[in-house]
């Protein structure tokens, strides 16, 4: 039986887990108060950026968001985490063992996360949901054993409770250092999704930048409805791999959310600032009471 633990107290954006959670955007020096937009070059005051959901106030560029900030921006209030007692070790004994464990340790400290996904229960616009959020700042959002195990637990528990499941994907694919046990998480999460969906439950996935490889090709593309954040890169093969294969440069638009929409692969592209509203609307269709 999983043990429940609330990680977020109030209904405002949680600040309880320390600076670590804004990992990649925060330079080593905590005093840095400014971020530069990689798209338009605008220098943004970090508090303004955070207030704007990590979207450039000038050009709309979507910075990669931490799992904690994501939950704060989407959930109504409390988020009750499950599976947080499950943490990674080094199953393969990745030769020079220190390096992988050291990387895990470093990412844990920098991100405030124990793994690349945070799973739990919350409400969104009043609708109770199972909510999983991946974070690219932890090992590039790669799916290791713990990632797969947590997502599977989430789906199993959502099935038991008969609530919709919403997962935010962000992933570089399967995690190399856990070898085939990482790849097998594709099988495991897919099987869990299949069981969840067999009973007419609603599965909604939000693809965020980037979602590729083993995560894209397993539970993410099984969803009933697939939403992608503006300009998010989504694909199976990495851009570099494709360019090496075809020996030419790919257009910038290739593998963006907008490209996928045109190719029929996803249901909609949404600006992060409208994302919560969109999710509430979508959830409303299946949670709506019969008209009287």
């Amino acid at each position, binding site marked *: 039986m999983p043990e429940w633990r609330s990680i977020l107290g109030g209904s405002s954006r949680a600040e309880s887990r320390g600076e670590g959670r804004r990992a990649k955007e925060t330079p080593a020096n905590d005093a840095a108060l400014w971020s530069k937009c990689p798209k338009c070059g605008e220098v943004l005051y970090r508090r303004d950026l955070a207030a704007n959901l990590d979207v450039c106030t000038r050009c709309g560029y979507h910075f990669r968001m931490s799992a904690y900030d994501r939950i704060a921006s989407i959930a109504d209030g409390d988020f009750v985490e499950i599976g947080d007692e499950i943490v990674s070790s080094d199953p393969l004994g990745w030769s020079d063992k220190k390096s992988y464990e050291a990387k895990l340790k470093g990412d844990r400290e920098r991100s405030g996360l124990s793994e690349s996904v945070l799973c739990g229960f919350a409400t969104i616009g009043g609708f109770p949901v199972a909510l999983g959020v991946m974070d690219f700042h932890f090992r590039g959002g790669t799916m290791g054993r713990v990632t797969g195990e947590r997502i599977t637990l989430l789906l199993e528990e959502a099935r038991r409770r008969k609530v919709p499941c919403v997962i935010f994907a962000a992933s570089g694919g399967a995690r190399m250092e856990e070898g085939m*046990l990482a790849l097998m998480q594709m099988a495991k999460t*897919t099987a869990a999704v299949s069981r969840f969906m067999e009973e007419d439950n609603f599965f909604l996935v939000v693809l965020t930048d980037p979602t590729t490889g083993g995560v894209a090709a397993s539970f993410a593309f099984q969803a009933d409805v697939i939403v992608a954040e503006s300009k998010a890169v989504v694909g199976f093969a990495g851009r570099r791999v494709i360019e090496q*294969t075809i020996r030419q440069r790919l257009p910038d638009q290739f593998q963006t959310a907008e490209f996928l929409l045109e190719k029929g692969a996803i249901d909609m592209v949404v600006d992060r600032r409208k994302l919560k509203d969109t999710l509430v609307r979508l959830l409303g269709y299946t949670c709506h009471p019969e008209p009287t």
Partner: protein
Amino acid sequence: MSNNIIVEREKGLLELERRIAELREASAAQPLDMSAEIAALEQKYGEILHELFGALSPWEKVHMARHPARPTSLDYVSRFDRFDELHGDRHYRDDPSIVGGFALLHERPVMVIGQQRGRDTRENLRRNFGMPAPEGYRKTSRLARLASHLKLPIVTFVDTKGADPGISSEEHAQSEAIATCLQTFSTARVPIVAAIVGEGGSGGALALAIADHVLMLEHSTYSVASPEGCAAILWSDATKAEEAAARLKLTADDLRRFGVVDEIIAEPVGGAHRNAQDVVRRTLDAVTAALQRLSALPVERLLEERYRKYRRLGEWQAEGLEATGTGE
């Protein structure tokens, strides 16, 4: 010069093989008894073979799995009692890197699906080096659904570097195609046996490898990424592929230990291609034995066990940091 270190190593044996063949021919043509010379040469040949191939490193197995003479999916399928190929994804294209259809195996009707590479450049171009496009995975899903509908067990042969990484594969939603395969195999209401007979490359291999019983040839490999890809990703240095091969735990023994593979099919010294007929026969016998066992299970139990099998991989006990699902 071949890129394949096993092929390179075999070149030294060719001279010896030629001499033994000559001696045999001569012996047959004249009354002179040369059996002693032949026996001596054959013993020497056996010794060299053992020396060269007796104990293969992971990196050597990677090359063995890619050996151009290694039996391919169709080499196995051709030894079924009967095979009627079915084509197409019903939407866009027939992808020749996937072959599949109805088959009889030891009198048992099954659906067989395999990844098919070519033996020469021309066939490799046609078969896209055994790397399926979304159309190939959609053909796979279609045939697996058809098998489930008609209550035919599914037998798959896995042999791919990975899913095709081209532009049109991305345009045609490769991720969705593979995810749908995984979902279809997870829920197919018939026994599934998968055999990793060559290279098992990443998600593109897994798409055909969710099964109730997974066989793996002794020198096949099955990994989260190719060693070259892994080295490039982790160390930005593809030349460290040999090191990556060792670390990835991609051999049959490793994967048997982790519970990813259920049974290993032994290969003759020097690899499956040195006695393909025997390897194919033993593989098909093992497939049939597994099907016999699985067919006896009620379908709900079969599905429950399949779920639990993958559910266990990477499962953790809440109190400790040790995995419970790494083997047995």
